[in-house]
């Protein structure tokens, strides 16, 4: 398991994530008027090649958006290719989706989900973050050895839209210095 986080720190972080993600899912459910189930947040440290593995699938579309604030990093959203039409209907898009409206839908979804996750995460840890516009991410073009980092902390949550094939995974990736900020915050919380 994580070399960067102790067992205690990880458990605390997971608990915090769980609470905040629940709130995020609730807000989302209200917006699109559908039932949403949520996985237990996963917290892992990965190296570049493990990170790259995540993109070796044709089940998902990928988006990315960066966030700035007291912690910095990027939020990646994996959106199931199956069930895009269903969720498009729920989100009030004209069906069938053409390429343009599909991309619009995916980016909007990604922004809502990643925004909800990051908001929850920041609020619980009393951090402030600001998310930028999401863009589509074509990960196949990236080689693992082109990344400028050796390992990163991933906070991953899976959303499932009940009664559809649609699911989505939100991965919050923190950059090196931000991991230290996070650990300090966790320690303060644990000491309290």
């Amino acid at each position, binding site marked *: 398991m994580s070399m960067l986080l102790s067992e205690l720190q990880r458990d605390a972080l997971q608990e915090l994530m769980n609470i905040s993600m629940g709130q995020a899912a609730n*807000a*989302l459910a*209200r*917006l699109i008027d559908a039932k949403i189930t949520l996985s237990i947040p996963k917290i892992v440290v990965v190296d570049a090649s493990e990170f790259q593995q995540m993109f070796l699938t044709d089940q998902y579309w990928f988006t990315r958006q960066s966030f700035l604030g007291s912690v910095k990093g990027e939020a990646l959203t994996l959106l199931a290719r199956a069930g895009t039409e269903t969720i498009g209907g729920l989100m*009030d898009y004209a069906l069938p989706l053409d390429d*343009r*409206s599909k*991309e*619009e839908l995916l*980016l*909007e979804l990604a*922004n*809502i989900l990643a*925004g*909800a996750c990051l*908001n929850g995460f920041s609020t619980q840890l009393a951090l402030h973050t*600001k*998310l930028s*516009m*999401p863009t589509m991410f074509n990960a196949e073009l990236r080689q693992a050895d082109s990344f400028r980092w050796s390992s990163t902390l991933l906070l991953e949550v899976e959303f499932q839209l009940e009664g559809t094939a649609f699911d989505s995974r939100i991965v919050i990736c923190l950059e090196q210095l931000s991991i230290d900020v996070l650990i300090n915050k966790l320690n303060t919380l644990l000491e309290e």
Partner: protein
Amino acid sequence: MDQPHLHLQLNNRLPLGICVLDAAYQVVYWNDFFSDRTGLPFAEVQGKNLLELFPQQARYLKKKIDSVLVLNNASFSYWEHQPHVFPFSSSRPITGEETLMYQNIEFLPGECDDSAVRTVCLVVQDVTELASYFQAEQQLSARLEQEGAELKVLNEKLSMAQSQLLQSEKMAAIGQLAAGVAHEINNPIGFISSNLQTLQDYATRLLKLTAFYEKIVSKTGNETFLALQRDTYQRLQFDFVRTDLPELLTESIDGIDRVAEIVKNLKAFSHVDNAQWQPANLVDGLENTLKIAANQLKYHVEIHRDYAADLPEVYCQPNQINQVLLNLLVNAAQAMDHKGHLYLRAWQQDQSVCIEVRDSGPGIAPEHMSRLFEPFFTTKPVGSGTGLGLSLSYSIVKKHQGDILVQSQPGEGASFVVCLPIAGPADSSPADSSRSV
């Protein structure tokens, strides 16, 4: 200068549209960017519902703003998907070809208490320049891609043509070689043939002589001589020799005649430039050509002939037309894998004579039909065909102002019909009657 005044001034100087709404979509603030472009100063719109100010975009704006209000999370609008949310005219009215401004919009949550969002801030960015640059780029890359694809097709065609050209050169060389060999063989065949004739004559005489001696010996009635004759006959198996010798010679003469015929035809065909215009009987031409193609057809091909009687002669280049017929016959034979039925038909139709060559082969695939007469197009394995036969035939027939038609259903054979005007092409004046291909 105090801080709020500074902020206000800054807000109005920014190249960004800023508009703040409350939870009821009422305008709390908008900066000069909005005023300048809508013609509505802030004082006039303050407290008005934004959705009513922009009714065309109300549904989209409401959706975006609601998402911010509910989720307390920024929302974005992209020029790629919604290029002109606010109907602002282009920032380049003189030099640009765009009429409307391309916009990226951020919908940001503003003040909030108890996680309920009180205000929403819209930040509009003019990305017209970026958008038109991007679109030009995309058009360019689409064009490049198309050109690349065309180039690839051309390259493939070129390499195909190259290999076929190589093949046809090889075939031409073989043809020349064959013509040369035919010429060389012609001489020995000449004297072999005449010698065989003489030999037949001599052999007949020798056998007559033997018969004469036989008669004389039997006349003598001398038992010793008769016994001696019987012994010698038996030892030499003369009775067999006597019957076999004429047959052998007849067969040989027949054989050498056939060789001579083949050589003659080979020579006739290697002289493709012999393009004399003259009246000719197409059925005779077809029959002569059949003889040449005989080795392709002889095994298991059954030939059915249906020639109309009293067909007029056609003014044409007989050698060239024979070349066309040969192509059709060889193609038919190869299509049937040398066994099946070959139907030959000839009839008069108005002022033309038509010849049909129909086979019982597997037919022609529909996707090949349109390319049949294309030079270098062949479905035969490499080395079997040049892909030139039908295209050459087509050009010969067209030169005669005739028609070559093809009909085929997969699985039901193929039919080729050549129709030639009886009077020949309209412009076949004597001046170019000896024109070569």
